[in-house]
Structure formats: C-alpha cells, structure tokens
C-alpha cells in the first residue's frame, strides 16, 4: 500500500498530547519514557559553547516479553536513549516511569532495585569484559553485588546455570576461561549471562550483534529471543540493521536526528514504510536481487546538529517531499492504525 492510496478518513491526527501505547488500551508498560529531551553542551568557554539536542520529545514504552527495536544511523541518538533508560544519563526534561511510577520520585533503595532490574548489553564484547578475569569472576561479581546472601556453592551453581542457559557448555570449563580464550560470539553470550545474573526484567541491548560474524549473529539473536520469551523480558534492541530489527523485535521505532519519525509493528515498518527516511533506510539495505549500476543519485548527507531552538523537520534537507511547512514545523504523529505512527507533513 502506498501513501497515495490512503485517504483522509484513515488518518487520525494526534491531539497535542500524543497518546502513549498504554492509553490506547494495551497492557501497562514495564518501562516507559515520555516526552524526553536530552541536551548536551558542546565545546568549552563562553563563545564556543553550544547546546546540542541529542534526543527530542521521545516517548516509547517497553512491555514484558516484547522487544522494541530502535533503528537509525550513527549519531541519531539511539545509544543516548538506552543510556537514559539505564540511568547513565539524566534526561533534560520528560519522565521515565517504571511500572507506572515516576523514577524521579524514587528513593535510593528504589533506584538500586531499578538498576538491577534494567540491564544493558553493550556492543563491543572485546571491550566489555576485563581481560584479566575469568568468565566466572565476571558473573560472580554481579551476583554477589546484587545477592550478597548467597553461599559460595550457591553462587557457583548459579554461574553454571547461567552459562548453561546462554549455551556455553560445558559451563565449568567456560567459567574458568578468560576472555581471550573465547570467541566474539561466546563473549557476547557471557555479557548476556552477566546481564541475566541479577534477574532483570528489562534488557537494553545496544548493537549486541554488530561486532559479530554473520554466522554467529543469528545464534545470539535467537538466544535473546528465547530469553525474552521464557523470562518475559522486555527488550530494547538498538541497531542500525533494519533486517535484524525486524527479525528480533515485534515493534520497530525509527529515529532520525533525535526524533522518532515512525514507529509500528516491524513487519509493517519494513514492508510499507511511510516516512521518507524509513524508505531511504530500507532502500539502502543491500539486496541480492539488485545490481549496483553506479548511476544512482547520492542520498546521504551529514546531519545538521540540532539545537533546542531548531525548528522544522530534521529530515528536511534530504527529503524528496519537503515543502515550506517542513522548514518551520516538526510534524505531529499521524496514527495509521495498529499502533503505527509516522511524523511527516506530506504523507
């Protein structure tokens, strides 16, 4: 279905306060961010300083047993969003809610629980494990920090169970190895085991497979998918690869220059993308059915940095549909049904 076949009745323009998924009747989110902005100050001194708006008015929610993929190019703010959710950054404005409760009102004890509950898996399995310690030590440390009452044999059993769960067998042998003795895919499995060791309910996976070989990539994604399903984990899956986003996540959100420009069921986003940026992304994915001719027009451009005062749609300079309103006003969400929204003036 192309945008041309859609008529005005099908479009319901969102009110000034965009509905969150929770208010449309879906089950309550485990973790949600609402109207979050994140500014960074660049440069130093009085004259050189400028404010960069890395994330602009982003609302999203994570549900038990479901994955949301966050797709976009480098610098679009994907990792910043994960870091805000992990409480590694404090958002400039907007709220984070954990099972409906505003995180800003949390006591120190609540926050400790939150940190245990929301675990991150990082991109680089070569940098995220300490080369001088064994695999077992990495897991033991997390277990002891969060569950100080376990006895030594209990910790050991727990480590073995975790390694078994992530498919590192025989578990005892893997527990005794150091990071240089195992492959990249196995290291990423250790990172996953470490995240699981504290029994979280939310996993924030920041490009967990982009450093892995294609043949092991699927194994790691399948492991995450099984864990998500069996442990009812909510997952945020950050990637620049829209094909693995579709493979792993039920929902896909497309981020451009800190703004969510389109979100919906992954199959809908990849098969009938409505936003011109989503279309560009999908057209750019290598497709074995095509043949490169060397004649296609150049489509990429550096993104202009966004300031809190920036107006208009961030995609305007690259957009084939841009009109004058795009220069001055950020489009609101247009809901197309099935939880699919797009932010574009010229659908």
């Amino acid at each position, binding site marked *: 279905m192309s945008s041309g076949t859609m008529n005005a009745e099908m479009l319901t323009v969102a009110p000034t306060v965009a509905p969150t998924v929770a208010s449309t009747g879906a089950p309550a989110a485990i973790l949600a961010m609402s109207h979050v902005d994140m500014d960074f100050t660049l440069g130093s001194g009085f004259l050189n300083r400028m404010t960069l708006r890395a994330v602009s008015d982003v609302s999203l929610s994570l549900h038990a047993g479901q994955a949301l993929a966050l797709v976009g*190019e*480098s610098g679009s703010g994907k990792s910043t969003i994960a870091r805000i959710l992990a409480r590694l950054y404090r958002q400039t404005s907007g709220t984070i809610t954990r099972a409906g409760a505003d995180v800003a009102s949390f006591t120190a004890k609540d926050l400790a629980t939150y940190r245990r509950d929301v675990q991150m898996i990082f991109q680089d399995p070569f940098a995220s494990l300490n080369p001088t310690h064994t695999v077992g030590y990495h897991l033991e440390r997390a277990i002891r920090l969060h569950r100080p009452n376990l006895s030594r044999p209990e910790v050991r059993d727990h480590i073995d169970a975790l390694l078994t769960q992530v498919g590192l067998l025989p578990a005892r042998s893997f527990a005794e190895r150091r990071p240089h003795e195992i*492959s*990249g*895919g196995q290291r990423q499995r250790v990172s996953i085991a470490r995240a699981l060791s504290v029994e979280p309910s939310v996993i924030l996976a920041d490009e967990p497979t982009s450093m892995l*070989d*294609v*043949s*092991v*990539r*699927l*194994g790691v994604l*399948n492991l995450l*998918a099984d864990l998500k399903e069996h442990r009812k984990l909510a997952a945020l899956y950050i990637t*620049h*690869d*829209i*094909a*693995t986003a*579709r*493979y792993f996540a039920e929902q896909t959100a497309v981020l451009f220059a800190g703004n969510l420009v389109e979100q919906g069921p*992954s*199959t809908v986003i*990849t*098969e009938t993308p409505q936003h011109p940026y989503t279309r*560009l*992304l*999908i*057209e*750019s*994915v*290598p*497709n*074995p059915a*095509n*043949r*490169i*001719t*060397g*004649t*296609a027009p*150049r*489509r*990429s451009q*550096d993104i202009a940095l966004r300031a809190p005062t920036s107006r208009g749609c961030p995609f305007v300079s690259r957009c084939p549909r841009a009109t004058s309103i795009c220069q001055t006003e950020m489009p609101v969400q247009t809901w197309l049904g099935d939880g699919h929204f797009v932010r574009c003036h010229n659908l």
Partner: protein
Amino acid sequence: MSSDLIAPMPLLQVRNLTVDYIGENAIARAVNGIDFDIAEGEAFGLAGESGCGKSTVAFALARLTRLPGLVSGGSIRFRGEEVLDFGPERLRKYRWNEVSFVFQSAMNALNPVMRVSEQIMDTVRAHQPKATGDEVRARALEMFDLVGIPSRRLDDYPHQFSGGMRQRIGIAIAMCLNPRLVIMDEPTTALDVVVQRDIIEQICDLKNNLGFSVLFITHDLGLMIEFCDRIGVMYAGELVETAAADQILTAPRHPYTRALGQSFPPLTGPRRRLEGIAGSPPPLSALPQGCRFSPRCTSAVALCGIEVPTLQTDPQTKGQVACHLAQ
C-alpha cells in the same frame, strides 16, 4: 554473462597460494592452497567468516604479508608476471601503480596530523618522483572531484570529515595512480547503510569509467552479490565454492554457501526463526579430518570426515565447488 568475455590471460592468476603464520611452537596454515583468477574489469568477491583467511589472501596479493605471516608456496601472476619473484624496484612499481588497497577503517588509515591534500600528494610523489608540484596537486584535486568531495576541502585535516567522507578519501588515495586492481577489504563495514549505498555506487561508477578490477572482501553477502560479478566462498583457509554472483544465493552448491546465505534475516515475508550455522569455524591449530566444514555440516556423510574434497569445475557454469555431495 561475463564468462564469455573473459580474456585468455586474466589480470591476476592465483595458483595454490599458501600462507602460514609461524608461531613459537606451531605453524598455522591460514590459507591452504587456493586458486582463483580475476579478469580485466571484473569484480571478484571473497566471502567467509572472520578468520577464514580472506584478508590474509588480500595482503599476500599486495605482497604485504609480514612475519609471523609467510607466503610459503604457490604463485601469484599479475598479467603473466610472477609477483612473488618481484625485487624491491619492481615491487615498488607494482604496489599502488598496479595494485592498490582500500582498507576497512580508512578513517584510521589517514594520518590525523597531516592535511589530506598532503596525504594524497605524498602517494603520488612516492610513485611518480618526476611529477612537478603543480601536477601533483592537480592530481589530488582531480581525485577529490572523482569521489565527489568539494575541492575547497582539500587542505582540511581528517578529523574535519565525516566517516563516509574519510572512506571516500581512502578510495581517492587508492585511485590516484590509476591502478588496474583495487583490493577492497571491508570498504564500507564501519558505515551506515545509506552512506554505504552511496559509496558502493560511487565505487561502481569509478570502476565503470576507469575499468579497473576489484577484489572485494566483505562479510555482507547481500552487498557482495549486488556489487561483484563472481564470488569465491572461503572456509577455514580454503576456497569451497566459486560461482557467478547471482548463483550464490539462488543456486548454492556447497552446504556452507547455502548456510551462509540463510544467515541473513529477510526484509519481507513472515517473521520466522532462522538457524544460522551451528558451532564455530575450527581453530587452525586443530583442523578436523576430511572436509573442514564437515563437523558443522547438516548433510555430511561418512566420507566427509575421511577424505578431503577437491575443487571441481562445472564445465557448463564454470562454477567450482569442493564438496563430496555436489559431485
């Protein structure tokens, strides 16, 4: 399609190429006697998992292998001349004038404290010592123009460019002496898909205009199939299949090629589970008996664990495969 057009003498002819890495107590054979040709103007791809020897082959072709690596056997013929016999003078001419390299992280291949103009001009000067200063600078400008970067940026430093532009500069440096073969080792891996698409289109455009051949190395099979004419699939240091690019996904003959092709989630159709390839490639220090892929192969028979299959050419398609089950 291009098989009828292949000239009698290929641009590059690799026979029984063997590269070892010498350890303190053991020798690891990273490339085990591989054969392939690259025709004039052809884009040949080498696919395979990390550690299968793709980059080792690329380095050996440019005579860049350094200890502990050692080219221990075989032959590399460039327009009929034996590259492995080149002396220092001939090698200097061979490198960059005839064969150049685009590395994976061109972003890190550029010197951060030198203006990019200097880095391009250095390359030209090193290989064409007789050129005058003006000629060299004119060449640098021409290269910038070729890869679509505004000439006013010629005297900027690498950090002033984005990743995609730095990769373009890497390509410009590789093209500046008009080589006949450009080895591209994961030229777009560190880039976003939209930028990747632009760069690969640009490489293709340059190739159409300048007529060089390409050895293209990437783990992204989809991209390789789009760009290359022919593809060789490597596994654990051996070539297991070569075929026309459009045959790799549609008519794979080696089980490894088939499994590799099924490791990419599709963008259309129902969301369903894919299994990828179970296990991991064998360490070079402990290779299995018989076919090296047999322990991971879902269709292996008893023979596969005993006898090493050799690369057999199909007389019709000219494709080659090393598998007991395909013969």
